[in-house]
């Protein structure tokens, strides 16, 4: 990692409101042109983090360096209007008295009218709303408003774009479509962006990097794939998606569990006791009249199904292909595909 390409660096950021400590120690960097999602539970300080970066809040300790310039420290804070950040709040917050065009042009008052209009046209094109430039916000749909809000934030070429749960107010279908669009818009604009969300699927699907915010600090940061497949502890594994947790012990380099001997991703000392977390999609159910496990319940989704199986290790959930999922009452043998994460208990 070359430090030169870090567009934004947070070091040991602390923030509390009165007695409540919201951020205890947050450090991370964002690479130029990349999209970082910050994933955390509601009320976990995600929004506070964004507001610190935007300059709406002052931090108690630590520093924020943007584009090589320190913008926040415990005794100094550059005001939001001098930071060159773009901000997209949850409810778009378009200026209700201005048309889409004028909303986008709001931050471009330093340009002459020719340059401003060109930039507005360029952005309207980028968000695919060239025909709707003169519409007032109340005539736009939720998704269109969110797009205008993003264009408005991108217009002055911000060093970093901050998106605060931008899809939370939209319905599920619109959300996933807009997510793809935003990904495309951001990469076309080569923007560096931070998006906060409490939605695991959203965080994983849109990001280059995911940071998990937990207990006021970054618990884990990495690519979506590494975050999902190698969470650093059982709690995170469960937070990021369904996980079957069984206890095991290291014997002969393998994890011996009631679901069989499993291969750990990293090797561990012999005799170590702990837990493994297995994703439902990594469990394979083989129909077997002599199998020791029984199917007890099934949630059918069409393309796949979530099957509950009673095993010696208790009830586990397995994801199976929809068309070939086993029926309730069937006896099966449970296999674990691939290697697993082993977490020693201390």
């Amino acid at each position, binding site marked *: 990692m070359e430090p030169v390409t870090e567009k934004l660096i947070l070091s040991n950021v602390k923030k509390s409101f009165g007695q409540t400590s919201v951020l205890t120690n947050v450090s991370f960097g964002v690479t130029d042109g990349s999209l970082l999602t910050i994933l955390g539970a509601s009320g976990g300080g995600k929004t506070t983090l964004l507001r610190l970066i*935007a*300059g*709406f809040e002052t931090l108690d300790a630590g520093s924020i360096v943007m584009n090589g310039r320190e913008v926040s420290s415990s005794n100094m804070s550059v*005001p*939001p*209007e001098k*930071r060159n*950040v*773009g*901000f*997209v*709040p*949850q*409810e*778009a*917050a*378009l*200026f*209700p*008295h*201005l048309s889409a065009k004028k909303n986008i042009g*709001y*931050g471009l*008052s*330093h340009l002459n009218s020719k340059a401003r209009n060109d930039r507005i046209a360029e952005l309207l094109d980028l968000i695919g709303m060239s025909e709707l430039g003169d519409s007032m*916000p*109340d005539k736009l749909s939720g998704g269109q*408003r969110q797009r205008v*809000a993003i264009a*408005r*934030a991108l*217009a*002055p070429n*911000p060093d970093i774009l*901050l998106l605060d749960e931008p899809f939370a107010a939209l319905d599920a279908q619109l959300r996933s479509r807009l997510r793809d669009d935003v990904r495309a818009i951001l990469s076309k604009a080569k923007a560096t962006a931070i998006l906060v969300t409490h939605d695991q699927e959203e965080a994983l699907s849109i990001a280059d990097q995911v940071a998990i915010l937990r207990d006021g600090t970054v618990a884990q940061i990495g690519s979506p794939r590494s975050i999902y497949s190698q969470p650093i502890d059982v709690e995170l594994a469960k937070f990021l998606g369904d996980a079957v947790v069984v206890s095991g012990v290291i014997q002969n380099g393998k994890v011996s569990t009631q679901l069989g001997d499993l291969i750990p991703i990293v090797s561990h000392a012999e005799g170590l006791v702990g837990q493994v977390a297995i994703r439902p999609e990594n469990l394979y159910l083989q129909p077997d009249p002599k199998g020791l496990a029984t199917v007890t319940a099934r949630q059918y989704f069409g393309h796949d199904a979530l099957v509950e199986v009673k095993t010696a290790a208790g009830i586990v959930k397995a994801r199976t292909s929809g068309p070939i999922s086993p029926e309730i009452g069937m006896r099966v043998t449970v296999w674990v595909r691939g290697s697993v994460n082993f977490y020693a208990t201390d």
Partner: protein
Amino acid sequence: MAGFGIFITLLPLLYVLLRTSQIGYAHLADIIFSARTLELVANSLALTIAVSITSMILGTAQAWLCNRTDLPNKRLFQVGAVLPLAFPSYVLAFSWLAFNPSINGFFGAWLVLSISTAPFVFLAVTAALSRHNSSSEEVARTLGKTQLEVARGITWPAIRPAVLGASLLVSLYTLSDFGAVSLMRYDAFTRAIYNAYRASFDRNTAAALALVLILITLVLVGIQRRISQTEVTKSSEQYRHMVTRLGMWRKPAQLLLVVWFSIGVVIPISSISYWIFVGQSSANSGQVLRALLNTLSYGLVGGIVVSLIGLAIAIIVVRYVSRYIVQVEQSVYLTHALPGVVIALAFVFLVNQSVPALYQTSFLVIIAYIALFLPNALAVLKVPISQVPTGVEEVSRTLGSSPMQTIWRVIVPAARPGILSAGAFVALTVIKELPATLILRPTGIETLATRLWSATSVGSFGAGAPYALLLIIVAGIPALLVNREIKSPRNQSSLEPASNETLNQVKPHIGQTLSRAQAGGTSD
């Protein structure tokens, strides 16, 4: 600017407290516990109680009949019930005196103030009824309760806070009214204070009486606060409402509404019209025109000044709210309950002691308007300001605008339609104002209100009629229309639902806002 406005608003209250503290306890006690003061207390309380009960019963009955029964032409009666709001109380007093001069004293004041205040109760109860979901009443019926039992057990508890809250508002209005009681020659507090000042420039008596009036007012304000806090807020969903069949009561109910409408609207209008025809010659058209221009100028200047200060405070309170500021805002509302006479006299004394040159100048009139109407302005201006979606300021900041630029580029333009109607409302309220204008205006400057007051005082109804009519046309009816405008939350709400936090910040004030807006603030 905001600080200046709040300072001006608090000035009269501070002054009265200071002034009475200078009188000395013995003398103060002499005045307060004199037979004369006790008589005034009894008079004012009798009138206040009589008016409150009358308008509570009539307003509630009107609201229920016009909203929840099978009475024909309900819409028409709804409009009729609100129409008296177009008459300032002294215009009503004029019209009834002109109709029959023997209607005066307690009966006259009671009649006129009941007409003036019943619409407040009507509006508050109508709002409560439309918020109340009828399905609970329907469930009660299916559980074997009769209509009457349902009305007593389900409907009444739901509207009770509104009825009581509005009735207390009515009592505050009655207590502080100057125009109607003085024209009706009823010896209530406001008239006595004015007379004490007029007759002898007796500051001690006027100040001591004002103090007693303030104390009574504060008690009522305290009770009102408590009641309005317990008000249940329901969601704004559209509910279906159960309709009560009146059966044989239909005719009497109709008769009640028609009779009350005649008393409150038909007779006043007819009486004014009659005197305009009969007494045409006794009004000087040049005088009328000058009074109209003076009135409009005071309305315009006062409206603009008060609205600008109100706007500044509204923006601070709504968009940058903090605990400290909320308390300051509450103090503004406290002064609001003070009668106009008291505020005006406080300014007279204050100016005479410190800057005598300001006495009887238009400047002082405007200053008094600030003290009188800033709370109204604040209440109506907070609505449009709070309807600007949350988060826009922050977005504006990140796009390079300073906090000040953000106010001018985003908040004010986004709320502009609402700000303009609120400003118009304030200007119209100023136009109707009587006591402060009467006491503080420069010698020789007459407004519609002061001309009407003088003409009625000497019983020349023909001379007064044109002013009464003009007041209804330039102030009363427009105020009624603008008030409707302010109350209907238009376009903005469809845009983005404000976040829960904002709603919660704003909610407690909306009830206040409406009642204040309807009250047209201080009485006349």
